């Protein structure tokens, strides 16, 4: 059970308090109707899935309830950093 630093609670908390919410910084287009099928497919389905440095979202669902972003190495599972939703990509 990994430990995750919640940037809102500002402490490391156990994984089972959190829910992973997939890749981070996949912003919903402001005007979806203007999107081509390809662009919309990319938004809906295409994911980075890297071996190594990965930007992902977590929700401290059984804690402060907030969604936030994280950078984690998918080979070691170690977190590089976590930061609040809305903050620039790290």
């Amino acid at each position: 059970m990994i430990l995750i630093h919640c940037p809102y609670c500002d402490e490391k908390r156990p994984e089972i308090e959190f829910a992973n919410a997939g890749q981070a910084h996949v912003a919903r287009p402001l005007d979806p109707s203007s999107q081509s099928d390809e662009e919309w497919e990319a938004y809906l389905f295409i994911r980075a899935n890297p071996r190594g440095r990965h930007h992902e979202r977590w929700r401290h669902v059984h804690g402060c309830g907030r969604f936030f972003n994280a950078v984690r190495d998918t080979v070691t599972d170690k977190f590089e950093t976590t930061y609040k939703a809305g903050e620039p990509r790290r």
Partner: protein
Amino acid sequence: MSDVLIRNEPVPSTPFIAEGVTISLAAPQNRYSLRARTAQTLETLLNVKVPKKIGATEGGIACLGPDEWLLRAEVSATIPSGAGLPVAITDISDRSICLVVEGPRAAELLMTGCPLNLDNFVVGRATRTIYETVEIIIIRDDEDRFHVEVWRSFAAWLWAAFTAAASH
């Protein structure tokens, strides 16, 4: 109608007493979910002190998240609706019940299923967390006393889990 309706609680009203720990149902109380972008907004509305730090409590108000507070008060208490303001005040008095876990083994009991290190959980602190798979809110009321808020439909399970762990 003459005779008033009586409350029906999901766990026994008589405390469960085991070696070093007692588990009992707290009296009914009013609960409100307070939401706003800042504590200040609420302080102005309610004109009471509202804790700023997540996990802190202040006069019955616990800060559970950056924009979320839990207010617990006696059943007679009333509160403004905040209508029209950038706040959300919602009555959740009956959403959960409160189990009082007290005694020298209180922390030990909670840690049978809660992954937090409650030895470092100072008196007055509050947090939403989890016991095995069930979400709870823990408030450390005193060295040897915790309040555990749990949604009603999970209460029977939590009572069974606590009492089983307490008798082990």
